[in-house]
């Protein structure tokens, strides 16, 4: 009887351990987030907006940018026309938050280290800015980005 109990415990232990680890795991609370910026209706116009993104985690982790198409970090519209796009990521949990706007090229290569241990839910503030060019008009239409924030732990 005792042997059977020990055998049962030995078999159930791995499953229990996984369940414990699964509880409080690292994950975005979204997992999809949408932001609609103000309309552009003149040259040299700057528009901006922001998203608060909640990240649940139980260990320090890293956030990186993964584009889902070539140039996915840039607001891209009809015929491949683009709006100059920049970003600023801030939040109390980020070891080195952005102090200023980051160009889309630099943003794509950024790594944001989340310094808190958790388990906790931290808020990451993603600000986005678009600028229409000065010497010409952009084609009429909708311009979109296509990227994901990936947390690694």
């Amino acid at each position: 009887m005792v042997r059977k109990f020990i055998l049962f415990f030995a078999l159930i232990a791995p499953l229990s351990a996984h369940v414990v680890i699964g509880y409080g795991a690292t994950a975005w609370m979204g997992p999809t987030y949408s932001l609609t910026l103000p309309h552009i209706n003149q040259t040299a116009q700057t528009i901006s907006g922001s998203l608060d993104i909640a990240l649940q985690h139980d260990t320090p982790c890293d956030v990186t940018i993964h584009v889902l198409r070539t140039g996915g970090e840039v607001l891209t519209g009809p015929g491949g026309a683009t709006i100059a796009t920049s970003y600023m990521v801030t939040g109390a949990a980020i070891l080195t938050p952005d102090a200023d706007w980051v160009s889309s090229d630099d943003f794509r290569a950024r790594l944001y280290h989340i310094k808190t241990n958790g388990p906790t839910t931290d808020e990451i503030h993603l600000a986005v800015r678009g600028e229409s060019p000065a010497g010409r008009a952009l084609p009429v239409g909708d311009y979109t980005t296509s990227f994901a924030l990936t947390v690694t732990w």
Partner: protein
Amino acid sequence: MFKKSLCLATLAAGLLLPTFGRASTATDSADISITASVESYFEWASGYKASDSALTIDKDADWAGGTGTSASHIGKPGDVITTTKNLVVHTNTDPVFTIAPSNATSGILTEGGTNTTLQTSYKIVAGSAGTITASVAGYLPAETVGAGGAFDGGSTFTLTHDVSGLSDINLKVQASIPAGITLPKAATYSTTIKITATWS
């Protein structure tokens, strides 16, 4: 004995497996969708905006075709002088241009002291980027009231904009001695007009 060993091995594996799981890299992704919309818009390039300096056609530098002391001056009956002023626009739509007088000279080149006038005509043609479709072909006389006149509401010039968002148009003005007048006063003649762009 064998069962005991099996139990211990299973127990050890059960305790170690979670440790191995934690040591491996795990990821989770959040898709971010950002959208901005660009509306139809039109702007005169710097220098032609109402808030900036007005576009000036200079009496000496800009005209051509005359036989006076310079090609910019009318020197005899039959002389027709013309000028072309390039206007750059930033637009992603196809605006319609109309011309209208903007002072008491009614868009007709006028000598201030005597109110003597020159026959004055206008048209807008395409520049290097974009095309123009005029509702009435040729120069449109400022003196003509109604259809076919430069300032008639039906006299329009529609720009088909260049896809680059940068287009330009040419305002062309023509001046000559009115019929029936052989010796107009030697003087400087001037007028003021405005060009209005309408778009949707």
